[in-house]
């Protein structure tokens, strides 16, 4: 190798080659982490197929999917899940109708309207909503919400589709708000400046520029929220009444319904292993996964469209602009006519006339009132939406705190349970939950961030990323109860971990992995390329650039994902049910191979099977809440620190 000039090393020196090798090794590690989600989902799918197929073969696919009657334990059993599929779709749709406007409204409030001090108070408060365990939501729904609905609407029972949608809507809110808020905040300041400089009001700027620019992030938020809603088991089964019927008429939101997850949640534990019923439940889980897949795939397509349209990287659109405009108008009219038609059917002519009147009034008002007044109205509504969300949080918290405070004593916090938790304390459960959550995050965070780094930094979009993303989306749509079953079949029995702390940690880690990957990826994406190029141009290696420049800049977003995950992991019951927990344990676990107590499970058993433990039940919920808040507080402080040190 001859020397080209006076520089001490040539451009293809051994040092350079070894550096290249090191880079390859690092890339390989990230690829491996990215594949974890794919491998998990393949294992889950395989497992569901293996267990579900016998039922499909016996029942017949058509009968299974399109028969309405689900009576698996009758003398002449019927295994039709149509009513369950419809129940799932209806409850999820209802939840989205509630959560999407409220969630995006609150996100706008936090990101654009609220003064800094208010924002810094509200943001963690809303993230706290995510930390409330689903059992608590379910219990709150059962005791407070359904009762309120029953009295308000003068029903014979408040356990309805509406109740399910409200609870799931509330549960999806933190995800939608946090992720949308991040997306809105990451819209470049120049867009705001440009719009305002044109004389647009703040509201016009938000609606005309910021929301469209943040649309991909907001869509991702809605999908994540929907994933949470569709996979939720414990809360929904406590409030929807679980009657396996199709509402009559279909839009009767006051009818009881039953979802696919609720069916799994209530029947999976009791069903006889190996029976047709058992296999049919796995087939249900499969159907649920497929529904999640369809939602995610269509969302991916939409997301791709949005990005292409904004960045001008797309191919020529199929329809010309003019045709598209016309199609849009036609669709709008059709939707209007349909809506009016539906309203007429439901509430007679008066309802339809009312709607027509409202639309007319809106159009008229839009012409008369100034943008300033529109802004005032819009901001008022958004503030009200945020207020409603906070009020809900307050009601739930108040319920838990007021009922649970009397249970909190030194003994309660430091001793083991006695008399089935009716007396004594919950110390081993506190420790168990901390072990589970910390372990799960310790496993999921490096894998998730690694996967996000691989997806965003080390590869360009192609088949591989598509596979990884699809796998991740599927994993995100997998209901927690399926994770529980998978954990039991794979980790506990096949791998031989037994019912143990480790099995629970891994199961929880797999469950929160998609959230971490998704939010980390969004965070990495929001780091401007100029930063990367700046570092690379200085001769830094790719890994050096990522670890020193990109990751610190993305840390706040990654921490948001982690915070959401902690909340989720701490509050979950279903995945632990068969993998990690025992009701009572005298000694703290010596190793990760021993089972543990966990707060949500303790709460679940107290709430459902131990009469006379009301105070302890609320006390446990309160401790769980305080614990999650504590972990949150640390994470929020870390995020704040990261935000303050990183600026670009």
């Amino acid at each position, binding site marked *: 190798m001859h020397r080209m000039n006076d520089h001490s090393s040539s451009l293809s020196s051994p040092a350079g080659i070894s550096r290249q090798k090191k880079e390859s090794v690092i890339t390989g590690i990230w690829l491996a982490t990215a594949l974890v989600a794919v491998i998990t989902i393949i294992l889950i799918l395989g497992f569901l197929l293996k267990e579900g197929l016998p039922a499909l073969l016996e029942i017949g696919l058509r009968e299974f999917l399109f028969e309405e009657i689900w009576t698996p334990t009758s003398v002449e059993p019927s295994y039709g899940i149509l009513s369950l599929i419809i129940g799932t779709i209806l409850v999820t749709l209802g939840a989205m109708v509630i959560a999407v406007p409220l969630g995006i409204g609150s996100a706008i409030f936090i990101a654009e309207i609220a003064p800094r001090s208010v924002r810094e108070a509200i943001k963690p408060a809303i993230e706290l909503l995510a930390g409330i365990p689903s059992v608590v939501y379910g219990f709150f729904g059962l005791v407070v919400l359904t009762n309120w609905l029953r009295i308000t609407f003068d029903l014979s029972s408040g356990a309805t589709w509406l109740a399910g949608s409200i609870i799931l809507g509330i549960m999806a809110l933190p995800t939608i708000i946090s992720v949308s808020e991040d997306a809105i905040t990451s819209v470049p300041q120049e867009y705001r400046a440009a719009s305002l400089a044109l004389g647009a009001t703040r509201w016009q700027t938000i609606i005309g520029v910021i929301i469209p620019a943040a649309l991909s992030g907001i869509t991702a938020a809605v999908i994540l929220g929907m994933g949470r809603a569709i996979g939720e088991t414990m809360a929904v089964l406590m409030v929807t009444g679980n009657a396996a019927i199709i509402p009559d008429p279909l839009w009767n939101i006051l009818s009881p319904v039953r979802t696919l997850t609720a069916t799994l949640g209530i029947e999976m534990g009791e069903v006889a292993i190996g029976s047709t019923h058992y296999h049919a439940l796995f087939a249900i889980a499969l159907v649920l996964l497929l529904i999640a897949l369809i939602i995610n795939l269509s969302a991916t397509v939409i997301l791709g469209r949005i990005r292409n349209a904004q960045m001008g990287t797309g191919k020529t659109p199929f329809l010309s602009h003019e045709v598209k405009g016309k199609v849009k108008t036609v669709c709008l009219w059709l939707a209007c006519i349909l809506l009016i038609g539906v309203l007429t059917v439901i509430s007679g002519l008066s309802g339809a006339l009312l709607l027509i009147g409202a639309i007319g009034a809106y159009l008229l008002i839009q012409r008369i009132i100034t943008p300033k007044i529109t802004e005032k109205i819009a901001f008022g509504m958004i503030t009200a939406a945020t207020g409603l969300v906070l009020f809900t949080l307050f009601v739930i918290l108040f319920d838990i705190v007021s009922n649970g405070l009397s249970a909190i004593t030194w003994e309660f916090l430091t001793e083991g349970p006695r008399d089935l938790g009716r007396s004594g304390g919950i110390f081993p459960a506190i420790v168990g939950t901390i072990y589970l959550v910390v372990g799960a995050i310790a496993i999921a965070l490096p894998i998730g961030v690694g996967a996000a780094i691989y997806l965003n930094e080390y590869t360009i979009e*192609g088949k591989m990323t598509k596979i990884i993303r699809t796998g991740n989306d599927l994993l995100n749509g997998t209901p927690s109860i399926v994770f529980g079953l998978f954990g039991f079949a794979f980790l506990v029995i096949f791998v031989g971990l037994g019912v143990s702390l480790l099995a629970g940690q891994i199961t929880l880690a797999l469950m929160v992995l998609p959230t971490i990957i998704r939010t980390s990826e969004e965070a990495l994406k929001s780091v401007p390329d100029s930063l990367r190029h700046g570092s690379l141009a200085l001769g830094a290696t790719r890994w050096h650039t990522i670890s020193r420049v990109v990751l610190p800049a993305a840390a706040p977003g990654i921490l948001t994902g982690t915070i959401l995950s902690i909340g989720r992991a701490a509050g979950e019951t279903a995945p632990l049910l*068969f993998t990690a927990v025992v009701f009572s344990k005298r000694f703290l676990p010596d190793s990760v191979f021993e089972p543990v107590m966990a707060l949500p499970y303790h709460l679940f058993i107290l709430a459902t*099977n131990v009469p006379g433990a009301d105070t302890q039940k609320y006390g446990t919920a309160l401790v769980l809440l305080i614990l999650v808040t504590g972990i949150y507080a640390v994470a929020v402080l870390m995020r704040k620190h990261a935000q303050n040190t990183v600026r670009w």
Partner: protein
Amino acid sequence: MTGSVNKPGFPLTYCVGAAVLLLAITLFVSGCVGNDSPEERRTISVTGSTTVLPVGQAAADAYMDTHLYDEILVSGGGSGAGIKAVGEGTADIGMASRDIKAEEKQKYPNLVEHVIAVDGIALIVHPSNPVTTMTMDEIKAIYKGDITNWKDLGGEDRPIVPVGRDSASGTREFFYEAVMHKEEFVRTQQELNSNGAVKQTVAQTPDAIGYVGLGYLDNTVAAVTIDLNGDSVVPNIENIKNKSYPIARGLNMYTQGQPSGLVKEYLDFLMSVEGQRIVAEQGFVPVQ
């Protein structure tokens, strides 16, 4: 597929990826094999029906109070899960609030059944409901959907809201056989997954009727007296013991083969006078 920047290392990238994954899986599996429990402590695990869990836990607590080096871990995920766990060997005892099914027997032929208690199932209504006595036929008619209004039973003119257990529950299965005589439930029946949830719902729903284990009766709900050919039978321990109350079933524990060691000691304790006293304390009916 990959950016040109790391093209030189492209195949290596994939090799390393595969290697890391393999390594992780190997570590993972091997880590689990050397899993032996400490010598000095005897530990068994009991899992299954959440209905039986209170008895199992309370007995375990009492046993461990006098045997400091033994640990009995009780958890509940459902009867089926319990039978599966003991069948697969991940638990030592499986609890079930129903009898083992043919499919399960076939899969795990060595399971041995131990009946440890009897559970009486009481019909409950809202305390404000004037209807407090029913015949077995009337109960069946309500759950079949033939009687849908309380006025047909001498109550107010309000629709009846039947609340039941989920289709996999042992309680429901027993109810299906003992009360419904295997005729179908009305499809608008609300289905909840625990005794606690059923009681809670009935306690706050004036028009509801539900069924729960005897241990759940308290003053927030009213227990229905059953009219057996003119004899009024109240659901209580005494009436179940003397078999005059018609809706009662056994609670079971299953072991893999005949029990030995701590498993046997624990089951023996459950069947002892002390153990059966605990059964009664938890609101169930002793079998001895």
